[in-house]
């Protein structure tokens, strides 16, 4: 059934239909609506789940780590400072191989205080061993949350479902919310490979000396390397049931494009219009929407971008002293390819500033009119 929902509630509905058993979260704008709805579902019996109130995001993650270790399906959500506070436990989650799913609403970090869209919070957690999936609209964030459980529980790695503050979290759109029965067909009850059991006690996560630690870390990477294959299979099953698919990356007019713009999140929607407009003017432009950031889809990047003339990466984030983070990753993916195209990095839309069609059009023309990048990053739309 199609409902008009805000992006936050699309997540809540997916969590409800995923029959999550333990939710723990600490409220932070713009994440609050997600867990607000879940706390009501937990208290009114809509969900047969425990909602654990905690005093911080660090504790929220600790609580779902405990619950997940005991073998139940868990959920948490956060944003910005909250995610930063969780940092220590993000490492723990992946190294303990716990299939926790978290919604992360992209919000700028303080100071100055800013509650609006910015990707630096989630991208700063790229080395914590979490799978990261960036979503474009309400339907995608609903579908991705369901897929995230299948993926996490298959590879025993945690998944972060990332959505833009306000542009997605607080925007109402029609979202198809399927029946429980259909969701159950796609997502069976969680059957953990390891779970704490009081009748057969054992300890987890204890000392790992030098002779095993490195192998454990390598094992996480091996699991990460299997993600793309498994994600594809899971999405095939998803498509069979629900008729929708997104891919780890989505290419739009890429096949004959000379310049490809790389976007993520809601900016991809704006970019679609820009591409259409430019195409109608005869420009050979394409767009690659990056949905999966971890594991980084290096093969797909090489395949789709290896032979274009120029690449323009739109980053709503920044790594100080370096460049936009998506641009860094694209460059890294391509650098061992012989004769790879130049990567133009553009910084725009930080702290909730709109990424308008005009800005994206400007980026296109800048890229077209430059033979090679003059800087690692060009900041677009700065006010003097």
């Amino acid at each position: 059934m199609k409902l008009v929902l805000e992006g936050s509630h699309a997540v809540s509905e997916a969590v409800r239909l995923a029959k999550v058993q333990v939710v723990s979260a600490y409220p932070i704008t713009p994440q609050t609506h997600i867990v607000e709805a879940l706390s009501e579902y937990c208290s009114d019996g809509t969900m047969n789940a425990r909602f654990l109130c905690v005093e911080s995001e660090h504790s929220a993650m600790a609580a779902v780590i405990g619950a997940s270790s005991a073998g139940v399906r868990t959920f948490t959500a956060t944003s910005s400072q909250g995610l930063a506070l969780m940092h220590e436990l993000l490492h723990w989650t992946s190294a303990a191989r716990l299939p926790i799913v978290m919604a992360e609403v992209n919000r700028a970090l303080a100071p100055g205080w800013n509650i609006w869209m910015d990707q630096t919070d989630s991208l700063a957690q790229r080395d914590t061993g979490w799978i990261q999936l960036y979503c474009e609209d309400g339907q995608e964030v609903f579908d991705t949350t369901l897929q995230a459980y299948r993926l996490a529980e298959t590879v025993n790695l945690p998944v972060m479902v990332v959505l833009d503050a306000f542009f997605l979290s607080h925007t109402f759109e029609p979202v198809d919310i399927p029946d429980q029965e259909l969701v159950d067909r796609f997502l069976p009850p969680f059957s953990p490979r390891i779970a704490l059991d009081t009748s057969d006690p054992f300890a987890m996560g204890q000392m790992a000396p030098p002779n095993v630690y490195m192998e454990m870390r390598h094992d996480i990477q091996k699991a990460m390397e299997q993600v793309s294959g498994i994600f594809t299979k899971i999405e095939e099953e998803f498509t069979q049931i629900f008729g929708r698919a997104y891919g780890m990356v989505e290419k739009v007019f890429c096949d004959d494009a000379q310049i490809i713009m790389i976007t993520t999140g809601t900016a991809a929607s704006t970019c679609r219009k820009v591409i259409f407009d430019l195409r109608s003017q005869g420009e050979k432009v394409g767009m690659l929407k990056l949905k999966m950031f971890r594991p980084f889809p290096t093969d797909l990047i090489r395949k789709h971008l290896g032979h274009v003339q120029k690449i323009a990466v739109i980053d709503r984030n920044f790594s100080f002293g370096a460049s936009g983070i998506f641009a860094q990753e694209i460059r890294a993916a391509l650098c061992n390819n012989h004769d790879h195209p130049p990567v133009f990095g553009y910084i725009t839309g930080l702290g909730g500033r709109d990424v308008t069609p005009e800005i994206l059009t400007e980026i296109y023309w800048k890229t077209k009119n430059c033979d090679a990048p003059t800087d690692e990053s060009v900041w677009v739309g700065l006010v003097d």
Partner: protein
Amino acid sequence: MTTQPKHAEKISLFISRSNISTEINKTGTWRFMRPKYNEKTAPCSAACPAGEDIARIEMLSNQGRYQDAVETILLENPFPSVCGRVCFHPCETVCNRARLDDPVAIHALERFIGDMAIKDELTLKLKNSPENGKTICIVGAGPSGLAAGYFLSQLGYSCDIYEARSEPGGILRWGIPRYRLPDDVVASEIERIKKTSVNIICNTPVTQKFLQDIKNRYHAFFIGCGHGRSLKMNIPGENMAFDGLEFLNLLRMGKVSPSNGPAAVIGGGNTAIDVARSLVRLGTTTTLVYRRRKKDMPAFKDEVEKADEEGVSIMELYSPLEIHEDDGEYVLSLQRMKTSGMETDRGRARVVPDSRIMQHLRVRKIIVAIGAEPSTLWQFPSRKNAETLCFSHCTFTASKPPLLFGGDLTNTTKSVTDAIASGKQAAMALDIFFKQGRHAIADCLNSCLVGNGPALSMECYMGGNRLIRNPQIVSNDDINLDYFFRMPRVQSELLDISNRLNSFDEIESTFSTNQAMEETRRCFNCGICNACDNCRIFCPEIAVILQGGKRKINLDYCKGCGICVFECPRSAMSLEEEL
């Protein structure tokens, strides 16, 4: 669909996992701080002149353990019903709960317990000391003498109390009006004292001669005859004024009849307020004249407020100059006073005449209550006498036989509860003297202080559980306020003003059981373990164990993180450096 994730078998999952018990890892070796159960002293109990174990009494009441609550209170105070009515409750002033909302209604709860003890005939099932064959003579059956007898009998002594009047009780029976303290309450609590080895002999004034005659029949003497004689104003026409104590006395004897016509009461102490409020009840328009400011009055604040409510008009800063008769009425001439600097010793403003401003009150009756002194001529031992030991609430002279003075004769604060404290201190001092000698009295008394004193605990003196209580007083910062929520203080029902003025009926009613239950829930139980179990629930090492109803710390595993101490809402635990 399968319930087993399809790709599970292919994904390797190499994590650290062990089936060996972690008990081998004695995490206690990491510890450098050690938690311990360390019950401390609640501020209320340290402020109580009688040293009642209030935090514990409220806890027991809240648990419905009324017999235990009554016993706990009677260990320290034979007069809970009386004190629950007339004590000035310094306990409430220091209550930690005041920082959250309002102090616990300790005063009303004491009355509830006291009345329940009377109604249900609950008494102390005393593990009395065996009778030791010693008999003590007590002069005066007021609160200090009765308390001395009560506590001495707990310690194995027999006591004869000589009382000049026809009934025991002193100020309780003769000096406090019925609307504050009904007769039956006093009688019931004295009745309970009579059931111990205390013998009260009324209608027997003790003169110096009588004292000589009986000197050899007793092993010691306690003099607690109180302040029965009023102070004089030393102004012309003073003989036309009536004495306040005498007025209250006649009132209690039923010898005062209603009168119209305005009256003036001179004084600012409790007796003056009692007189004024009694007059109002007799239908008399009453003006209270006080030479200092209203806020300097030594009377209890509550009482002054109630006098205000009941229509006593208070003239502050007027000092009586002269009384003369005029056409069957009296004219009271008053000098206007003004403040002039502070009196350093008592913290109130010094007053001096304000030029020539005068006022004249025309009244039918003038009653003076400006203070009192001992009514009988006693040879009081000089405080400078090297033989005499002076304590906070009594003096002790090791004559043969030993002689002790107490009650109003020695107390700085002249209150009923201080009089009880005096009886207790005297009983303990005497017992220490007989058992260990004069030199041991001071140290031994000090070992029984509640908190920093001066209140003493008979339970401690008799070797009870309270001995292990840390004298450290629980401060507001020691309370974990996260565990307490604002709750309105339970108010006892009050007679409305019109009904008050028609009779001498008691103004306040005693809490119902439900009210008491609700109010005891508000008590933080500062410093006392009430078995909330937070320490055990929160211990991350499961190192708090429950054995036979008692909590213990398993030091093999306790890492000394201090969570148990932090989560203890009431500071019944402490964290100490490991030695």
